[in-house]
């Protein structure tokens, strides 16, 4: 089959008559026992190919990291106002493992503060 004006490889080859014959006789199945074995073999090869093709696809489209789900905000935190949240955050900051990147907490909304406290407490629970 010729595509895009290019010559496929099999058209450039020179064949011995026995090679030509071999190509034709190979199209005939003459041994039912071997046919059964061929079915099993083809199935196994196809399964391996599927694995290899899946790996190639993953290489093209690497899986994106699953976005981290935000910590759930408890009813208790929802009930706290801004001052109470800041007080709670101050307590959390005394824990050595807790480091808060936000230096200017005044720039955060109350909801942001609530989320921040929830995240820190969730992390603390995970590490405990």
């Amino acid at each position, binding site marked *: 089959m010729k595509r895009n004006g290019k010559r496929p490889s099999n058209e450039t080859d020179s064949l011995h008559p026995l090679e030509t014959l071999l190509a034709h006789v190979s199209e005939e199945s003459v041994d039912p026992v071997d046919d059964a074995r061929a079915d099993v073999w083809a199935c196994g090869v196809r399964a391996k*190919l599927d694995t290899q093709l899946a790996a190639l696809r993953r290489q093209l489209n690497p899986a994106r990291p699953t976005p981290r789900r935000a910590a759930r905000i408890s009813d208790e935190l929802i009930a706290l106002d801004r001052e109470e949240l800041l007080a709670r955050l101050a307590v959390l900051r005394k824990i050595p493992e807790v480091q808060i990147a936000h230096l200017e907490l005044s720039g955060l909304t109350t909801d942001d503060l609530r989320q921040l406290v929830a995240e820190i407490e969730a992390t603390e629970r995970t590490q405990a």
Partner: protein
Amino acid sequence: MKPDEQPPEDDPGGLRAPFVPSEAWIEAFDAQCTDRTLKALRRYAASWARLVGGDTGNDYGEELVQTVLTDTLRGVIRWDPDVEELEPHLIAIVRLRARRDRRNAARYEHVYIDAFDPDDSGFVDLEAALTAGVGGPEQTDPLMDRKVAELRALVSTDPHAQRFLDAVRQGAITKPQIMRLAALTDLEFRSARRRLARLFVQLTPGRILSTEEG
């Protein structure tokens, strides 16, 4: 499997860019590498085993096909789906490697064919290899000529198979060419091909007869 695990055979220094197939390439391979194609390749490679040597049979054919498939997926053998269908590409590679194995088997008669490195194809760029005449052609191989003559003698009572074989000897390659030159109908062509296939299987298994044997 990573396509860039190792450099291609003709690029030991790893200078060639690693093979990273496109989505279209992967889809084309996936769609064209059917069970039917795999079984056809296996039969083709197993037929070659009869010319290669030893009691390699199906094991040789299966291993050869598996290696050719893997090398194509790894980009060791380049396949361009825009130029050629997968099956003829794989058939051509199987033929090149089987030729090489047959020549090695003839050269090193007492070495098992399995001892030859299946990855050491020497034929990376199929187009270049064929253009340069590497690995073929076999048009003047006396041992293979004799095998054809053996077959010709076996079909002496079957005029269709005889004409089929004679057409091939005269250079017909494709089914239409053989049918035209041998003056065979489609049914006669298939019947003759089946007969030849049975006879081919009955031919002495193992390496094609050496000059000493003949």
